[in-house]
């Protein structure tokens, strides 16, 4: 990136432009290149397991992750409340609100 161009745009707009273009490209690769074709069965088995692997990672990073640290804080109480709600077969919205409510309450005390 040339210095002049970098100065011309503010750094915020530069990030907005780079990240926007990158995200659109990431999301477009599969749909545009694969078209309407389905994957061969071996690959389909792998893609099927993307959901559990990715969601588990999102749970972990959102529950105990911080910037290059593991932090065990009030969020875990919220997660415990969510687990109880999930076991009681509560609707998704109840699960989410229970987690937020318990965490907020714990931070208040």
């Amino acid at each position, binding site marked *: 990136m040339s210095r002049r161009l970098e100065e011309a745009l503010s750094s915020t707009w530069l990030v907005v432009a*780079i990240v926007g273009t990158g995200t659109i490209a990431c999301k477009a690769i599969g749909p545009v290149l694969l078209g309407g074709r389905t994957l061969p069965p071996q690959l389909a088995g792998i893609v099927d397991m993307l959901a559990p692997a*990715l969601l588990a990672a*999102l749970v972990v990073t959102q529950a105990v992750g911080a910037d290059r640290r593991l932090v065990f804080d009030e969020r875990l109480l919220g997660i415990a409340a969510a687990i109880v709600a999930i076991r009681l077969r509560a609707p998704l919205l109840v699960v989410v609100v229970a987690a937020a409510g318990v965490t907020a309450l714990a931070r208040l005390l």
Partner: protein
Amino acid sequence: MGTLASVVMSATTFAGSAQFAAASVLSAAGSVGAAATAAILLNARYVPIGISVASVLRGGPLRRLLEGQLVVDESWAFSRRRDGTFDRGVLIGAGLVLYTCWVTGTAAGALGGEALGDPESLGLDAAFAALFLALLVLQIHSRRAVVAALVGGTIAFALVPFTAPGVPIIAATAGCLVGWRKR
């Protein structure tokens, strides 16, 4: 970051976690390169996610590109059926609703966010973890899926202290390799 920049970012980078990552690096006086890298690493997961939904999108390349932009973690997880196929109506419908709420919510937050206070004091960080957990439970329908989740979660847990935000999530996709089937 200004109101207009926030709204434009929500409209083009429709993926909340990446926006939060870029904004937090910028607000900590990080470089343009660091902010963009963190956000794009987080969004690299949309390459495999896009591949998984490619068969239910329709039309020519341009329409497929636009439909692909509506795919976010939540619309993707909601539309996934137990047999691993995707419900096109739910995928597109949830994507449109989420997109509209996200862009208008960003505008409202950018204009009046200071009145709301700190999102952490409202427990919103735990709410996202709970949402992903509930969605994960919906995806667990085989022993193989349990193993994939354990591998993915363990990789993420192990890498958080050592890598930039986003990297643990990308690395955790290696858990999907348990899905390999021999002919």
